């Protein structure tokens, strides 16, 4: 059978991806620009015997997610920046309790109420400190509807595999832009959870899922265990690169911004400019080692231009990844001010011309 092709918004692609990934419970609270996700789930989940419930706040929504996850559901929530801040206590608990779930953040401008246009301002929040304590989760940043569909579906498998939340970090451009999506069946694994979920202590000892460890040695051990898990997640690192080895400049960008940058880079390469492209798809764990290798690929010192729709966040991870083997430049656009690919080309040409442009 031919795969079905439909015209959808990015947020709808995410919802279809969730259904393909086996999502059977959704809890959320309305916030622009992601309302199509709960709207679609409220129609589709009941049809499939699943659960949809609109909570009274993001705080309640994430805790309903916690409950459903503890009893073995494939569960998700979605929100946008301010709502994600409200959920962050819940993220910390989910990580600590080792409960899998999928969280979608369709980023909008901040800080505060900000705006409803595109932003990548929640990068640090997602990859550095999703909640209090030392917790981390896998963060995927799709840049097309097809990728949003595939990564969201895969996120459910990986959440179960690591018994940890997984975040899909999207933004208002990808979320609200329409493009064709191929609804192809994906091979998403079902992972057995019978050995840890709470489903009543029938013919087995009672189980406790907890995050309180008053004994400091026990708590330290717990943290070491979680840290090992975060290291294991490095197996899931994904990225896209356009690079042959002798480029002077490497443009680094993620999500919607990477799509604009890629077009600019491809145009320049066609004209013979020595410009490469690197797009982290997993933002946590960050593809540090690959970036380091890129910086070391030839004797010539390279320049890493990091384009972001915020005031410069991922640039810090790029700089620390290359350990001084190249120069790092931050090109940032505060939320809502979108550049055209030509503007990006101009920035790159400027950097090629002046080796003394400001560095990070």
């Amino acid at each position, binding site marked *: 059978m031919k795969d079905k092709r439909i015209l959808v918004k990015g947020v709808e692609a995410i919802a279809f991806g969730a259904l393909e990934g086996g999502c*059977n*419970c959704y*809890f959320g609270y309305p916030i622009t620009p992601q309302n199509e996700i709960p709207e679609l789930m409220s129609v589709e989940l009941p049809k499939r015997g699943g*659960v949809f*419930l609109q*909570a*009274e*706040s993001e*705080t*309640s*929504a994430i*805790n*309903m*997610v*916690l*409950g*459903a*996850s*503890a*009893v*073995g*559901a494939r*569960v998700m929530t979605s929100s946008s920046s301010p709502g994600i801040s409200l959920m962050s*206590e*819940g993220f910390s*608990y989910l990580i600590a*309790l080792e409960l899998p779930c999928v969280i979608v953040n369709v980023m909008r401008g901040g800080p505060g109420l900000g705006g409803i246009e595109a932003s990548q301002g929640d990068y640090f929040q997602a990859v550095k400190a999703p909640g209090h304590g030392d917790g981390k989760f896998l963060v995927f940043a799709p840049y097309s509807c097809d990728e949003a569909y595939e990564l969201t579906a895969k996120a459910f498998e990986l959440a179960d595999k690591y018994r940890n939340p997984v975040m899909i970090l999207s933004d208002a451009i990808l979320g609200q832009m329409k493009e064709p999506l191929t609804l192809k069946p994906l091979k998403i694994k079902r992972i057995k959870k019978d050995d840890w979920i*709470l*489903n*009543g*202590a*029938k*013919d087995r000892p*009672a*189980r*406790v*899922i*907890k*995050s*309180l460890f008053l004994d400091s040695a026990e708590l330290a051990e717990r943290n070491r265990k979680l840290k090992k898990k975060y290291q294991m997640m490095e197996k899931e690192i994904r990225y896209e690169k356009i690079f042959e080895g002798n480029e002077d400049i490497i443009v680094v960008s993620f999500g919607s911004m990477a799509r604009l940058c890629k077009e600019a880079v491809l145009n320049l390469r066609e004209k013979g400019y020595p410009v490469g492209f690197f797009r982290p798809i997993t933002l946590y764990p960050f593809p540090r080692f690959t970036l380091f290798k890129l910086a070391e690929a030839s004797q010539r010192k390279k320049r890493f231009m990091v384009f972001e729709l915020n005031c410069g966040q991922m640039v810090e991870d790029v700089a620390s990844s290359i350990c001084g083997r190249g120069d790092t430049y931050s090109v940032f656009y505060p939320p809502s001010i979108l550049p055209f690919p030509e503007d990006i080309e101009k920035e790159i040409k400027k950097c090629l011309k002046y080796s003394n442009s400001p560095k990070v």
Partner: protein
Amino acid sequence: MPEVFKLPKSLKKNIFHYCPGCHHSIVHRLLCEVIDELNLRDRAVGLASIGCACFLYFYIDVDIVEAPHGRSCSVATGMKRARPELVVFTYQGDGDFAAIGLGDSLHAASRGESITALMINNTVYGMTGGQLSPTTVLQQKTTTTPLGRDPKREGFPLKMAEVLSNFEGVAFCARTAVNTPKRVIETKKLLKKAFLAQLENRGFSYLEILSTCPVNWKMDALSATKHVDKLIEIFPLGVFKDTFGGNSEI
């Protein structure tokens, strides 16, 4: 010789960590007796909330998850919606249920979630050292109302059983105490009914149990137990809503 008294099967043989004169242990025991008598152990899931009773799992031998502070009714909602065959109960203090978790509690009640919520009301934040709680009574001294609760400053005590009785989603709602043997027996009956409401899918069931906090009330065990009678003048005992109607005998 016939056995006339034994520990409930669902009660673990651990020594309670609660202070002398605290009523948590009485309620724990009653809860275990009800779990045993209704044969719920193999499908019960409990929510341990933040407060002195967050160590619920040291004593009660059923599946238990720790909920973030105030969120038990939301966590329970997620569980019950995902697996309606489970019997889900929360065990919360007055701070957890009626202060930080008020929104979660009221909305779960309003939706008529088929869960059983227990609120242990001792009028203070016990674990953190006796601060003002929403149920602190007027003139009561706490570590954050050193001159006593002044309604002009801290407002009035929140009466949750009365509030919830007005909710259409609530199937059963009562307040009780365990400071006399008679009330202990009565509490067990009400507790059983709160679970039956869930088993019959009637909606949200709520039982508020007046309890002591001798240390933070600065009383000995006996005076604290007697002091609960004073609380009853402000928080009257009784069944505030009961959808069982005529079949209320257990």
